[in-house]
């Protein structure tokens, strides 16, 4: 029996595991999205750290970076690990608006909301049900997915951990 592992999904990365006890982790999500795809019956989960809403030229080598390519990419990874699409559900968090200022309309400000919407759109396009979401607001989040139970824990600075 191998020891449980914490798999880190950094910006633009995806991780997947089918090992009981393993955790999938994304730290310090601001405007980024942490999207988990979970098949509890198979004990498989994946987590992707999405950075931008729409794919550009680098999507071919970095599919996990963009909401519209990250969803099919993660779906493929968890399916290969034994998850089945009809049993699968999604949990997403992040997409905050971190910087406050008097000036509206700066593109930096809108990324969080656009990331969240693009992720939800991509999930809807694949007919994946969203079990829970914790998106928007002005506070950063860290997220931890328990592969065995499929439970998702989210916390922000000075906040209690929330179970999703």
């Amino acid at each position, binding site marked *: 029996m191998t020891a449980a592992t914490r798999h880190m999904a*950094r*910006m*633009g*990365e995806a991780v997947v595991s089918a090992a009981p006890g393993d955790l999938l982790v994304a*730290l*310090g*999500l*601001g*405007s*980024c999205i942490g999207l988990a795809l979970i098949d509890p019956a198979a004990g498989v989960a994946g987590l992707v750290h999405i*950075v*931008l809403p729409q794919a*550009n*030229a*680098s999507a071919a*080598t*970095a599919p996990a*970076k963009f909401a519209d390519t990250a969803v099919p990419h993660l779906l493929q990874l968890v399916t290969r690990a034994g998850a089945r699409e009809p049993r699968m559900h999604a949990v997403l968090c992040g997409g*905050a608006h*971190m*910087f*406050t*200022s*008097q*000036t509206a309309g*700066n*593109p*930096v400000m809108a*990324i*969080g909301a656009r990331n969240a919407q693009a992720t939800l759109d991509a999930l809807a396009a694949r007919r994946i049900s969203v079990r829970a979401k914790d998106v928007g607001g002005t*506070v*950063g*989040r*860290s997220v931890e997915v328990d592969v065995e139970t499929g439970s998702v824990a989210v916390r*922000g*600075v000075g906040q209690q951990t929330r179970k999703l």
Partner: protein
Amino acid sequence: MSERAYSDFELSAIQEIGNIGTGSAATALSQLVGRQIDIDVPQLELVSLADAADEIGPPESEVMGVLTPIMRDFAAGLLLVFPVGSAEVLCGMLGVDAYDEMGRSCLQEIGNILTSSYGTALAQMTGLDIEPAPPMFAYDMLGAVVDAVLAMSATSEQVLFMKTALHIEGQHCDFGFLFVPQEGAVGTMLAALGMA
């Protein structure tokens, strides 16, 4: 892996712009706080997006960030990253509490001063027209504070940014200073220097 986006010669030109800009910004800060400022040699980072946040610091450390976008001929972000302890010291030196509205205004004003002097140096070297926008503030985990800024520059496979640290002499006050050019900005700067 794609081919390298910039030659060594181009990178050293950007590095030199950063050195001069940072020196100018440090002088402005020194005048504000009445103390000498030590600057680490600015490092130009050309790294993957995944590595970028780690290069700046532990993603869950609590920081106060001040982001000043630069606009007009090219777009970039100047980001000051204050560990909370350093924000307390700096605000204390200026007679305000880091955690209230005055502290936030004070840090934003420091962002304004550093960005203006950095931007002026940049404009003088390149002859480009640039203008800083009003500074924005965030108090949160480092990862959350930097991700939107990095995202804006992350349209290619790698992220290019310049980082340095400023230290106020005789005080436990050290903070990060990042210059993050957005897509196309580096090309514009190099062209203005006659290098592209």
